[in-house]
């Protein structure tokens, strides 16, 4: 149902990401850290907000003047705090909107992901409410426009016996209590926002909530510079006898107000309701068959916890042993959260091909591609390699460049849901058995990984930095990872060519032992 829009958006994102990768390096590409940046901006806004709370005065008579004082008297400090508060909030809208569009484009909102998506919707409501009530606090002409407009909109429901917008009809209707109430709202709604932000990521393991240092410093300095160059200012003071006529709207937060002016309350409520309901039901409109969740085989599981540590979605938990075997714990999968990526299969120490077919079993397996079938695929690929120089088995995933497109003379491929599913012993198996001269593992760029952590764990396991590590006896120069997103088939081809050239050079040099004999010795 969403395919057409997704296939329009995805190439745009991929192209943008490639471009930004080139410009700033993959480590500091903001497009890979949109959620984390939103968190970071929240902290900036919260810190500056706490400061601004001190000089702000909640009395009708002095509120506007107090904001003017904040802005102009100590422009280099409290003025800058105000600007950071404003621009940080704007930046939050930018990163949130791009984040949600990107999650949609990359199809990361349905299936096991429904929870993150559903909790994202109230985040939008809290974010906009926080921002708009912030602008009310200034009590300038813009605030008056927003206050009257918002209340006219809410009044349409008639939930309050009186028309609340009537409170803004006459000078003198407003009391100091109004601003005390506003401050209260403007503190508590962002607090709810923060709570829901944490709920939003509760089902994800190792969520990126902190951007890389370079990105954090860079964006902070960006906001700081912006605050000095274009300090945030107010409109003229509110005057209930005067209609706000010419306004410099903050379009990030206020784009719906002109719509309200044109449409009136009923149509705008309809629009908001339709969008909200659409967002809420979207995860279930994706009529795709969900692949079967991972299954634990207790007779193999020794409770080592590696699957729990590596699962990107926190879908495996360790519970007390239920089968009486002499281990304290056992793994248990929550099928509702499991995306069937297979990363747990790659992490399990029992996932090894060095057993006869009858004994081939693992502690945690994917019903869609069990270990037995994976070994068959690998053996079939090795059989397809009919000799030739510098032969390579390439492991690819369902979301990156199609590994099968590399098949040909001296290259055979195996595709799995996520490259993180490949247990290191399989690489050992291929190379030590002389099945191929090299193994290339490919998949999406780390920031794009559909299953979040595939490239990260694969790199760590292959370099030996993380258990299960590739055994020391495997010559590292014969194993390579090459991450490439679907829009980079040529990059992958080039990496493959370079890898094979290196393998050929290895063969030619005397240093390389004739490995086939070595393996059979």
């Amino acid at each position, binding site marked *: 149902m969403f395919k057409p829009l997704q296939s329009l958006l995805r190439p745009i994102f991929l192209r943008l990401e490639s471009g930004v990768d*080139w410009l*700033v390096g993959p480590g*500091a590409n903001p497009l890979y850290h949109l959620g984390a940046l939103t968190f970071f901006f929240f902290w900036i806004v919260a810190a500056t907000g706490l400061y601004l709370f001190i000089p702000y005065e909640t009395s009708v008579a002095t509120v506007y003047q107090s904001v003017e004082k904040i802005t102009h008297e100590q422009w280099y400090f409290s003025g800058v705090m105000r600007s950071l508060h*404003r621009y940080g909030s704007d930046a939050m809208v930018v990163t949130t909107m791009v984040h949600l569009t990107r999650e949609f484009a990359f199809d990361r909102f349905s299936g096991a992901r429904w929870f993150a998506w559903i909790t994202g919707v109230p985040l939008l409501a809290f974010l906009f409410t926080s921002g708009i009530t912030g602008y009310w606090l200034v009590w300038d002409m813009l605030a008056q426009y927003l206050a009257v407009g918002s209340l006219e909109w809410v009044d349409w429901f008639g939930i309050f016996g009186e*028309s609340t917008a009537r409170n803004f009809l006459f000078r003198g209707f407003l009391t100091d209590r109004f601003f005390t109430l506003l401050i209260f709202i403007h503190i508590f709604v962002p607090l709810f926002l923060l709570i829901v932000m944490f709920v939003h990521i509760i089902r994800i393991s190792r969520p990126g909530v902190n951007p890389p240092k370079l990105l954090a410093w*860079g964006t902070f300095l960006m906001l700081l510079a912006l605050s000095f160059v274009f300090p945030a200012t107010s409109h003229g003071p509110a005057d209930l006898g005067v*209609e706000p006529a*010419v306004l410099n709207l903050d379009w*990030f937060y206020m784009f719906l107000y002109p719509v309200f002016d044109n449409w009136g309350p009923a149509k705008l409520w309809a629009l908001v309701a339709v969008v909200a309901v659409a967002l809420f039901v979207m995860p279930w409109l994706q009529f795709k068959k969900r692949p079967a969740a991972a299954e634990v085989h207790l007779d193999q599981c020794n409770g080592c916890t590696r699957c729990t540590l590596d699962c990107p979605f926190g879908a495996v938990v360790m519970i007390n042993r239920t089968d009486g075997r002499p281990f304290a714990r056992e793994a248990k999968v929550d099928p509702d959260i499991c995306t069937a990526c297979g990363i747990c299969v790659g992490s399990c120490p029992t996932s090894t091909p060095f057993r006869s077919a009858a004994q081939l079993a693992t502690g945690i397996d994917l019903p869609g591609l069990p270990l037995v079938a994976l070994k068959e695929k690998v053996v079939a690929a090795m059989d397809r390699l009919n000799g030739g120089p510098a032969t390579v088995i390439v492991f690819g995933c369902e979301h990156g460049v199609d590994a099968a497109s590399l098949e040909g003379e001296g290259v055979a491929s195996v595709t799995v849901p996520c490259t993180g599913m490949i247990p290191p012993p399989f690489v050992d198996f291929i190379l030590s058995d002389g099945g191929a001269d090299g193994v290339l593992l490919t998949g999406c760029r780390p920031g794009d990984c559909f299953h979040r952590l595939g490239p990260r764990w694969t790199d760590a396991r292959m370099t030996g930095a993380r258990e299960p590590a590739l055994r020391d006896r495997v010559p590292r120069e014969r194993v390579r990872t090459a991450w490439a997103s679907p829009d980079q088939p040529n990059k992958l081809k080039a990496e493959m060519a370079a890898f094979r050239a290196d393998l050929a050079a290895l063969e030619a040099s005397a240093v390389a032992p004739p490995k086939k004999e070595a393996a059979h010795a």
Partner: protein
Amino acid sequence: MLDFGFLKTVRPRHFLGQALIYLGTAAFIAWLSAHPTYTRLAPDQGVLKLSLTHAGQRAEPCHERTPEELAKLPPNMRAKMSCSRARLPVTLEMDLNGKTIFRETAAPAGLSKDGNSRFYHRYVLPAGAHRLAVRLRDGRGPAFDYTAERDVIVQPGKIMVIDFINDKGQFIFLGV
């Protein structure tokens, strides 16, 4: 406390690239947080707000309960007068320079229909002289219970309010 070691791993091109990206983003944020300007009112226009809340008359007049009626009620509710709390809907009309531009009948608020009827409407008018007539019906009869007519000057950029003072049963024109 602060560790800037990470900077050593960054290539110069990437510093330049970052500067470029941040410049673009900052410009985008700076621009869209205050532009384009939104003009709601031309210099020669003013605003008229017709806003009032008023309770219609009682839907049924109160009546004195007969002894039989009283006997049927639980002892603690045996009040002599029976008054339904429900109210009639209120109709409000307004003419601008002889033409009717507003005509609405508002039901009383509340589940038991015992609240106020509410009206709220905003008009943008050319500044200058206008003749306004307002009529309100809160009873059963075909005739309007309250009427008012005024010559007003709409000031450019200003808000004029028409309200109804319930205690006095009188329309008021504010900011004329």
